[in-house]
């Protein structure tokens, strides 16, 4: 390397100082000017996190939030060159550090994840629609859906209630999030476990609707095919109106 170790050390020192604020000696530097760098750098990170996690930022005690953000930036080496993706690393960091337990915020991982998924879906690269047809006969066909979506499972209903109101409501919450093609807006809808199973099978596009229904009858021990079909068609038609279900695959 052309860079001498001594020069590298000086760079590393100022960078480390910007991350943790711990006093450093830097050759020929004006010490009273260094805090400006720390402030500028830290603000970028703080702002990006507050933009991605507005609910977390709003409801988590501000001193706790400050501490978490501080720990993240001083201990974690941000990998992503695109600053808007950096908050995902924050979510992973908090999970690894078990901050939900440490700060008694049981919903923390779920809340960060939910907020992140919304941003990720909103920003992610476009995925072209599959080749599909409009059809009245869904049963023998594979259903085509908007590929810009995510099905997630939460333990706390942070998508419906204020974070601290969810603490005593631990359970299984499934939801579908998708990006509207036209507006780019993110929509989400709650799913029962049965419809989660249905959707996950539809998304994998391996089976016809009829085959999926048969699987459901078997797995969920349901006897009433007709009721299952009626409820499912209602559900899928609703998703069609909302632009998530497109039609059936051409082939």
């Amino acid at each position: 390397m052309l860079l001498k170790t001594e020069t590298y050390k000086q760079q590393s020192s100022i960078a480390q100082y910007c991350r943790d604020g711990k006093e450093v000696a830097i050759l020929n530097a004006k010490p009273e000017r260094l805090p400006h760098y720390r402030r500028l750098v830290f603000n970028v990170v703080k702002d990006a996190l507050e933009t991605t996690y507005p609910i977390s930022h709003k409801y988590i005690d501000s001193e706790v939030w400050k501490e978490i953000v501080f720990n993240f930036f001083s201990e974690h080496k941000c990998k992503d060159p695109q600053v808007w993706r950096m908050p995902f690393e924050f979510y992973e960091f908090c999970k690894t550090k078990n901050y939900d337990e440490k700060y008694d915020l049981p919903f923390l991982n779920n809340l960060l994840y939910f907020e992140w998924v919304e941003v990720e879906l909103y920003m992610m690269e476009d995925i072209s629609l599959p080749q599909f047809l409009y059809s009245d006969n869904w049963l023998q066909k594979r259903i085509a859906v908007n590929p810009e979506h995510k099905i997630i499972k939460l333990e706390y209903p942070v998508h419906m209630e204020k974070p601290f109101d969810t603490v005593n409501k631990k359970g299984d919450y499934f939801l579908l999030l998708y990006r509207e093609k036209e507006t780019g807006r993110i929509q989400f809808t709650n799913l029962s476990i049965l419809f989660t199973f249905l959707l996950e099978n539809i998304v994998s596009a391996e089976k016809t609707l009829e085959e999926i229904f048969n699987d459901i009858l078997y797995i969920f021990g349901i006897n009433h095919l007709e009721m299952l079909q009626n409820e499912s068609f209602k559900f899928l038609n609703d998703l069609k109106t909302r632009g998530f279900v497109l039609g059936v695959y051409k082939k």
Partner: protein
Amino acid sequence: MNIKTGIGFRKDFAEEFLTGSVLKPGFVELAPENWMKIGGYWKKKLNQLAKMYPITSHGLSLSVGSPETLDMEFLKNVKQFLKEYNIEIYSEHLSFSKCDNAHLYDLLPIPFREDAVKHVAERIKQVQDFLGRRIAIENVSYYTPVAAEMDEATFVSNVIEEADCNLLLDVNNVYVNSFNHNYDAKSFIEKLPLNRVAYIHMAGHTKVAPDLIIDTHGEAIIDPVYELFEWTLDKVKPVPVLLERDFNIPELAEMQFELNNLEAIMTRKWETENKSIVVSK
């Protein structure tokens, strides 16, 4: 392509700007990092923008001053982005924003040292080889020297010459640094390889203490910076000039007013010599 003044494109004013009624620059500049590998709403806006204006790009995360090796994966994405939007100018800062493999997302000063000149120049060459084009490197504002063994003008000039790259001359940064570090802005500019200036930045700044200006891009351009700009134009060939405004965004009409000021100076200084202003590679 007859290009004059441009504006840094920001989401903050995208909606109104894209109506095209108030602010009408000759081109727009954006940071590839914020616009590449995205989709949805902002991709649509970007495509709309690209139909209306030529685009120049000004990177944030390449970090030519980093001690570590270049992020080639990142650079590949930049290359793809430049191609997709037919972007002729790709510029970056003469600073580092990543160290020990940790991104800092802001610009830190490189030590003004001989070994750093060699190291940074080598990296810029690598980038240019990979992209198959010359890039423009910008003189940045800095608030403290770090382990400096030479003056800033020598450092900037040596890097630019050694890397055989273009210079993005940020006139406001020169003003800010000359104030913060007590040197003469004009003699600083005279020491730079002015034949390599391919692009100019203009901006406002914020005085935070009697002896310190922070380069916020959050205010209107002040008169001494206009004056320095005017003086500089006698010494460089016609190039695109960009107005940077990142914070405290005013009415679009105010930014148009600043573009008009810049254009008036450019016309007076450059078009009297009957030169056309083009985006050069």
